[in-house]
């Protein structure tokens, strides 16, 4: 699978949990990439390992955009 295909799958997974109302509560970077911890009140924790460079850029962009939004309010 090309890096790009892998990225699309990772992006889908991230979007999937966020669409369900989960929040990224922790990002741990390690030799494999970035481990995201996602949480929704009353629900179990979800962990996602995001390996591709574009995938790691993607969730960083989402978080960064949110921060910018909050700051401009």
């Amino acid at each position: 699978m090309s890096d790009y295909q892998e990225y699309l799958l990772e992006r889908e997974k991230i979007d999937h949990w966020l669409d369900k109302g989960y929040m990224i509560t922790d990002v741990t970077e390690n030799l494999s990439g970035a481990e995201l911890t996602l949480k929704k009140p009353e629900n179990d924790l979800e962990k996602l390992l995001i390996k591709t460079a574009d995938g790691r850029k993607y969730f960083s962009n989402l978080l960064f955009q949110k921060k910018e939004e909050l700051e401009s309010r």
Partner: protein
Amino acid sequence: MADLRSNLAGIQSPNPFWLASAPPTNSGYQVQRAFEAGWGGAVWKTLGDPILNVSSRFAAVSFNGQRVAGFNNIELITDRPLEVNLKEIYETKKMYPDHAIIASLMVEPKQEKWHEIVKRVEEVGVDGLELNFGCPHGMAERGMGSASGQVPELVEKQTFWAKEAAETPVIVKLTPNITDITATAEAAVRGGADAVSMINTINSLAGVDIDTWNTIPHVGGKGAHGGYCGPAVKPIALNMVGECARSPRINVPISGIGGISNWQNAVEFMLMGASNVQICTAAMHHGFRIVEDMIDGLNNYLDEKEIPSVQELVGKSVPKYSDWGNLDLNYKIVARINNDVCINCNKCHIACEDTSHQCIDMLKDGQGNPILKVREEDCVGCNLCSIVCPVEGAIDMVELESEHPPMTWNDRQAVLGLVQEKKGNLTP
């Protein structure tokens, strides 16, 4: 006709092209011919206690038929008595009062030595002084040149001593043989330097003769490291100029040196913060008259851009030079091959396949002819294919619009820090 007059810390010259302190400025005869050819200034071959040289002294590195891609020397400072040089400086300045003559100086790191030489050269009417803290060989073994230029405290102290006696502007010429040139540039500023110049030559060994096993160059079968200059060192010099220009603690003008071979190179150095440029190897390779093309080229460039004075170029690219952490991670370019220009040599395919991201496909067009096509989603925009492509215009690197606004690495790290702090309150 643009105004080419330049001003480095108060030293005026009719144009920004100076000969660097080296063989081209060894004598009055040479400097006078250089001024006649059009050079705006000359930094005299370094003065100090006259030395003894060896033979041979120079070697050059040719690369794929390009002669003098790099130049290496094991020559020391002047071997002529101070009085002879001073007399010729005096005569030359009388003949060319509007051209800049700067005395390059190197003495032992002692206060009285600096005071003595500064006074003696200023008596003959030089426009400024350049302290040579850069020569990497021969003089360094005697505690001078780069040996003192690598130690910020010694740079500061010697600059201070020279300034104590000096009435003309003091330029401190820095060695590139150091990890962070801003450390010594700052030391020069603390010592009171009116300007800094860079770079002197880089420690080097031009080669080893694989038949005789001698070094290149060698002196009767023995070699020693020399100093490297010429086109090959330009990127190193340009970065050092840029690093100093963008440092808020180095607030003195910069004279840019290192590999400058034409007017375009000079413009690059000035855009990156140099107030003027100094040139050695290009003059040694092609003679004094190369300055004619430099002056014409610079003039036309300024006229075309409707810039009235060369001084307006100085530092224009400095705000664009930053740290990696401030670059936008979302900026994206990809390669696009123009199949009507491409000659199907496949160099780009091989480069991408073997050493980049395997995203140039070899396909057939409707008529069964071989064509190359970039899979843009896999292209990382590294530029390698366009660098190796031998045909101008066959590959364009094109900008793609990003779905996200700009985000730098520093932005990203800051937001990841916030995630840890807020535990979820930031979530999209």
